[in-house]
């Protein structure tokens, strides 16, 4: 049976992260670079117009999601792929494992996929005796470190090159170097062998095209193309909301995704993969499976948090979030970190697990400003805070304090009394109350402004 769900220990995780100076320097450096480059590239384009168009298109898909899924399935099947529609993580994992088992495949190469993280695919396959080789450089680093991704597009963002150098020397037995070019060359040499010896490649998808049945991969390292075109079997795992209506809609997202993610005008590689290898083609998988994951999304799309499903996973909200950029992704202890991650964790894992994460935001609104598809993240976070209160996931003390606040706020005589008491009792409150907040605010005055003005 599953363990009882406990809340993410976000504050303890954050405190640990704050005392890690290497992590803080790496986070600061990387998020600053991403955010600055993003700001530069979007300033040169009609961003608001593009955001509106992309948002409208995403909403159109969400309005008719099941129809678009059907259409995609039909066209992908026609192109030679086998489409597997799965309800939950377990089903998706098992289907992938059974495909591999059916071919007697003991090793897969994998390009970056957050959906595979969401369904905890690697652990599952490894327990079944399948060797999984992550081929995105960042993913490769954290895989050999035995960690999960701390950023949705830059999984090893929390590590600096010295740490990667030490890790490589220790785990791969190579000579220490902190030169990124040297480290990348080491990984490339190892991975190249894996690409050519693996019998299956697993990928995610940045988008899926309904009217052609294609999947779209956006990468900077070309590893996605290797994973999906060299091994004879290709398994793409993606969630249903990744669908866009038509290939002609794709530019509306491609012009926003790299700009928002890394500040690039285009990423180095973009692959549109339509079914299996056709006669006369020199590359491409001979067998293609598309595992479509629902995992609660058909329900989410009907509710008040549906706009979360507009997300195209660019990571801009992570880089803009003052909390994320300080503590990094692991503190959230969830598949998805940062502002989008808080909302998704609440929706996918439930309030029982996610409720402490709702304190991992100052509600500053920076995430909403940078979102390329206008997911109203600040509003969703605020609404989840309301839901947390309604469901009773705040402390008794806080509930009592707020009930008291409500009473005082609606009565000016109680308010006056409260001010006087705060002034008088301040020295006592300072002694017995929470030092880390009370020490930081001045003592309430005896001659309040209302006394002066009246």
């Amino acid at each position: 049976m599953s363990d009882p769900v406990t809340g993410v220990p976000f504050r303890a995780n954050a405190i640990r992260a704050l005392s890690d100076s290497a992590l803080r320097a790496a986070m600061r450096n990387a998020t600053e670079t991403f955010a600055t480059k993003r700001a530069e590239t979007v300033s040169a384009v009609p961003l608001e117009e593009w955001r509106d168009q992309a948002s409208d298109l995403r909403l159109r898909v969400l309005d008719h999601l099941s129809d678009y899924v059907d259409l995609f399935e039909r066209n992908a099947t026609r192109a030679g792929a086998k489409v597997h529609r799965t309800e939950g993580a377990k089903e998706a994992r098992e289907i992938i494992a059974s495909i591999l088992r059916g071919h007697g495949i003991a090793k897969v190469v994998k390009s970056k996929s957050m959906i595979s993280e969401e369904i905890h695919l690697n652990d599952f396959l490894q327990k079944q005796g399948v060797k999984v080789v992550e081929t995105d450089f960042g993913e490769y680093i954290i895989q050999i470190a035995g960690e999960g991704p701390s950023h949705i597009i830059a999984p090893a963002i929390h590590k600096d090159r010295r740490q990667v150098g030490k890790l490589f020397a220790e785990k791969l037995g190579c000579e220490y170097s902190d030169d990124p070019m040297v480290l990348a060359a080491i990984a490339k040499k190892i991975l190249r062998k894996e690409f050519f010896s693996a019998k299956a490649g697993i990928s995610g998808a940045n988008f899926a095209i309904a009217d052609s049945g294609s999947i779209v991969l956006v990468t900077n390292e070309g590893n996605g193309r290797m994973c999906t075109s060299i091994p004879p079997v290709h398994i793409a795992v993606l969630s249903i909301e990744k669908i866009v209506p038509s290939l002609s809609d794709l530019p509306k997202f491609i012009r926003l995704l790299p700009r928002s993610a890394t500040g690039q005008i285009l990423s180095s590689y973009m692959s549109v993969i339509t079914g299996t290898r056709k006669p006369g083609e020199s590359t491409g998988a001979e067998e293609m499976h598309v595992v479509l994951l629902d995992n609660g999304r058909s329900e989410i799309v009907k509710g008040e948090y549906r706009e979360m499903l507009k997300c195209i996973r660019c990571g801009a909200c992570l880089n803009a979030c003052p909390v994320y950029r300080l503590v990094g992704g692991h503190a959230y202890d969830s598949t998805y970190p940062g502002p989008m991650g808080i909302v998704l964790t609440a929706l996918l894992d439930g309030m029982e697990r996610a409720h402490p994460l709702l304190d991992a935001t100052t509600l500053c609104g920076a995430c909403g400003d940078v979102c390329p598809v206008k997911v109203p993240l600040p509003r969703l976070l605020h609404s989840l805070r309301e839901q947390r209160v309604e469901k009773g996931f705040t402390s008794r003390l806080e509930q009592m304090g707020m009930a008291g606040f409500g009473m005082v706020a609606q009565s000016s005589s109680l308010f006056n009394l409260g001010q006087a008491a705060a002034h008088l009792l301040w020295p006592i409150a300072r002694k017995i109350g929470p030092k880390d907040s009370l020490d930081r605010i001045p003592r309430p005055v005896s001659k309040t402004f209302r006394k002066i003005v009246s």
Partner: protein
Amino acid sequence: MRVQLFGTCLIDTMFPETGEATLRLLRYFGVDVGYPAGQTCCGKPADSGGYSHESRMAARHFISVFEKTDGPIVIPSGSCASMVKNHYPELFRDDWQMREKAEAIARRTYELSQFLVHVLKAHEAGLTGKGKITYHASCQLTRELGVREEPRLLLKSLKGTDFIELPSADRCCGFGGIFMAKMPEISMALADEKVETIMSTGADVVTGCDHGCLMNIADALRRQGSPVKVKHIAAVLAEGLT
């Protein structure tokens, strides 16, 4: 012209000198300032905590106090002004009668720098000040009210002062209302980063439109032993008045 001043609970309880500066400033421009006696708190702390029931209690009270008055409602705080302008109508989305009242109140509401620039043209009045000033752009003011240029226009117009733009001025200082108490470690770390940028400007005064943030920044400055002074924009603008 007559306006109604909402003092905000922070200014009322902890920073009355900012309230006095606001009064002097508005009166300097010939404004007749009313201060509705029953006012308390706008309810922002409950609202940001997700306590919609309690924030509605505060909002109902605010509306009942101010609907008896006329004229613009001026609030020397971006987060309180946004609470009234943006969140009140939202809080009563399922109650059309209250929603109409909330919307009427919202239409009358101005954040102080907004009122000073758009109504009083205070940035053209040749006010004076002193020293090197930098400015922290608080979150709700900037992103919810869209007030970005007004405070800067006012500060740049001050004769005898140097205005220095703060790097990443609109990055959150880590106050966040209830966040400050629930995540004190992150809150302080963010305030420390804010102070780092403030010190990098060489300014001797940091100002802003929200006392919550300024209180958090002042604490970080104190912890770091910095001589930089913290003043609300009302205090900075009223300083040179005679």
